[in-house]
C-alpha cells in the first residue's frame, strides 16, 4: 500500500498537476462550457424547454389524455393572448392582420409583411409567439406516436417499440434537448478524462527505466512485483482523476437545472433515443459514468503496456496517437454515448467491454510474465 502511495505521489508531481489543470481549462473553455452556457441553445429550444418544464410541474411525470387536453387549452389561451398583442400593434392592424391565425398564414413573400413577422419574432422576441410554436411541436409529437415506430426496423426492434408505447414509457415528459445536451457533455468529459489519464500515466514505467532507478527497485524486497504494483498505481491514479473530473463536471452540470428529468424514462416520445431497457434518465447517467470508469481501466492497462515497452517518450506518445484516435472516436461513440440504443445490438456494448478488458489484461499479463524473467 505504501509503495502504491509513493508511486502515486511520483505521478502527481506539481508540474503534471499544473499541466492537467491547463489542459482541463482549455478543453472546458473550448468544448464543454458551450453546452453549459448555451443550454438550451437559443430559441425555439429555450421555449421548448420552458414548456416541458411547465408540463412537469403541472402534470407530473407523464401526461394522460385529460392533462393533454389541458395542455392544448393552454395553447389556445396563448393564441388568444397573441391575438390580443397583435391587435395592440398599430402597424400590424394597419396591415390588416388582427388574429394569430391570420398572422400565421400571412404571405411572407410580401416584403412588408415579412418584415413585420421578423420584427415580432426575431427582434422583439415576443415570448408568446415562441411558446405557441413550442407547444404546437409538443402537441404534434404527442398526437402522433405512430411516427415513433416508423423506421425500417427488425422484428425485435419493432416489438420493443410497441412494448414501450403500451407500457406508457413513451408518455414521459422527457425532452431530447436534455438528453442530447447530456450526451454531448459526457462525451467531451470522457475525452478530457482519457486525455488526463494518458498524460499522467505516460512516465509510469519509462521514467524509472530511463533513470536506472529500476536497478534499485528490482533488487529490493518488492523487486519485480513493483511492475504489478505500478499497475495498481495506474488504476488508482485513474480512479482519482476520473472521480475528480466527474465530480467537477456534475457540479457544473447542476447549473443546467435538469434534475426534474432524472426520474423520467428516456424512452419518451419527446426523445429521439430509444433504449432496449426501461431506463430513467438518472439510470442512464449512472450507466455512462460506469462505462467511463471501465474504459478508464482499459486505458490504464493499454497505457501501462505502452509505457513499459517504449524506449523513450517519443515512442510512447507516438503509440498513444492511434490509441487516442480509437478511444476518442469509436470508443466514446459506442461505449459512452448511445448506450443501450435500440439501433445497435443489445449485446454490443457488454461484449465490447468484455473483449477490450480481456485483451488489454492479456496484453499486460504477457508483459508482466516477460518482465519477471527479463535480464536487466
Amino acid at each position, binding site marked *: 500500500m505504501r509503495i502504491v502511495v509513493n508511486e502515486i505521489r511520483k505521478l502527481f508531481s506539481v508540474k503534471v498537476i499544473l499541466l492537467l489543470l491547463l489542459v482541463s481549462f482549455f478543453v472546458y473553455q473550448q468544448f464543454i462550457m458551450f453546452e453549459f452556457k448555451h443550454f438550451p441553445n437559443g430559441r425555439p429550444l429555450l421555449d421548448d424547454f420552458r414548456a416541458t418544464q411547465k408540463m412537469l410541474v403541472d402534470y407530473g411525470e407523464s401526461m394522460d389524455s385529460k392533462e393533454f387536453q389541458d395542455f392544448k387549452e393552454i395553447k389556445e389561451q396563448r393564441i388568444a393572448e397573441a391575438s390580443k398583442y397583435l391587435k395592440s400593434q398599430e402597424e400590424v392592424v394597419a396591415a390588416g392582420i388582427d388574429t394569430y391565425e391570420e398572422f400565421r398564414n400571412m404571405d411572407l413573400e410580401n416584403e412588408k409583411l415579412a418584415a413585420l413577422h421578423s420584427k415580432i419574432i426575431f427582434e422583439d422576441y415576443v415570448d408568446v409567439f415562441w411558446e405557441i410554436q413550442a407547444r404546437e411541436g409538443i402537441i404534434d409529437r404527442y398526437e402522433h406516436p405512430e411516427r415513433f415506430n416508423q423506421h425500417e426496423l427488425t422484428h425485435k426492434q419493432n416489438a420493443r417499440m410497441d412494448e414501450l408505447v403500451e407500457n406508457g414509457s413513451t408518455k414521459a415528459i422527457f425532452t431530447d434537448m436534455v438528453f442530447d445536451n447530456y450526451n454531448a457533455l459526457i462525451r467531451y468529459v470522457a475525452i478530457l478524462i482519457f486525455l488526463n489519464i494518458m498524460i499522467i500515466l505516460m512516465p509510469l514505467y519509462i521514467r524509472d527505466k530511463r533513470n*536506472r532507478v529500476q536497478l534499485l527497485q528490482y533488487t529490493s524486497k518488492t523487486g519485480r512485483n513493483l511492475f504489478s504494483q505500478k499497475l495498481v498505481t495506474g488504476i488508482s491514479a485513474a480512479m482519482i482523476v476520473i472521480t475528480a473530473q466527474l465530480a467537477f463536471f456534475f457540479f457544473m452540470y447542476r447549473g443546467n437545472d435538469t434534475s426534474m428529468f432524472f426520474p423520467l424514462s428516456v424512452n419518451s416520445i419527446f426523445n429521439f433515443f430509444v433504449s432496449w431497457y426501461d431506463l430513467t434518465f438518472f439510470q442512464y447517467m449512472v450507466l455512462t459514468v460506469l462505462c467511463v470508469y471501465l474504459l478508464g481501466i482499459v486505458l490504464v492497462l493499454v497505457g501501462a503496456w505502452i509505457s513499459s515497452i517504449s524506449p523513450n517518450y517519443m515512442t510512447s506518445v507516438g503509440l498513444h496517437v492511434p490509441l487516442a484516435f480509437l478511444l476518442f472516436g469509436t470508443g466514446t461513440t459506442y461505449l459512452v454515448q448511445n448506450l443501450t440504443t435500440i439501433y445497435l445490438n443489445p449485446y454490443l456494448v457488454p461484449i465490447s467491454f468484455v473483449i477490450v478488458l480481456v485483451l488489454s489484461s492479456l496484453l499486460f499479463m504477457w508483459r508482466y510474465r516477460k518482465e519477471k524473467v527479463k*535480464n536487466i
Partner: protein
Amino acid sequence: MLIVEDVTKNFGQFNALKNINLEFNNGVYGLLAPNGAGKTTLIKMLTTLLFPTSGSIRYDGEDIIKMDEKYREIIGYLPQEFGYYKNYSPTSYLLYLAALKGIHRKTAVARVEELLKTVALDHVANKKMKKFSGGMIQRVGIAQAMLNDPKILILDEPTAGLDPKERVRFRNLLTNLARDRIVILSTHIVSDVESIANEIIMIKNQEVLYKDTVSNICRKIDGRVYETEVSYEQTEQFRSTYLIFSEKQENGSMYMRFLTEDTSKPEWKMVHPNLEDVFLYIYQDGVLSDDQTA
C-alpha cells in the same frame, strides 16, 4: 553462506561468464578485474537482475531465484550507475526505497536519519538532490544499500566520486560491517580492496582465476619483482625486455619496478609484490575492450 555453482551466462552468442564457482562467507570480498571481464554480469546475477544461463546461485542452500523476495530482503546493492529523482531530497528518496524494501515506516524514518549521519549527509537531508555533487550522490547510494541492514552487501565501484578522506571513512565502515555479513566489492582500483578485503576474486577469460587472500595471491609472483634505476638511454631497451609495473623519474634516471624470471642482478633490489603487481601481471596480455560489459 552464498554459493555460486557452475554458473554460465551467455548473451545470445556472446559468452560473458563460464563455469563460475565461488563461495562467500562473512567478510569483505574484492572482485578485481579489468573493465569488461564480466564483473558487472556476475554482480547482476548475484542481485537477481540477470538470470544464469546454467548453474545456480544458492544462499544457505536455497536457490536465490526461488527464494525471490526472501533473498532480495537481505541484500543491499549499489549499482555502478544508479538512478535518483532530481526533485527528491535524500530523505524522501531513501524513504521511497525503504518502502520498496519492505521496511516498516517508523523504523525507516529512524534508520534513514541514522544512515544519513553515517554518510555525513545529515546537513542536507531535506535538500533536493538536483544540486548534489557526484560524491554526495554516491554517498546517498551507499546509504540506500545499507537501509535494510543487509546480510549481503553488494557494491559496484562504490568509491567512484569519493575523495580520499571519504574513502578512508568508507573503508572503515565496510570493515565494521563485514564482521557479520558478506560484503562483495567490485572495483578496478586495487588500493580500495588491498587493505580491507579478506579475499580477492580475480576473473580472467570469463573464468575465476584466483580466489584467495591478498598475501596468498601476492605470493604467486614472490621473488620475481624488483626495483632498479635505469638510465634514460636504456629505458626503451628495458621496457621491451621486462614487464614493467611502474616507472618514475628520479635524480636524472628512471626508477623502474618490474617482474622477471631471470636471475637477479646486483643493481636490482628485490621487493615484496603487492596486489597491483599481480593485477598487472595477470592482465598483461588481455586488455579487454570496454564495450563487452553487459
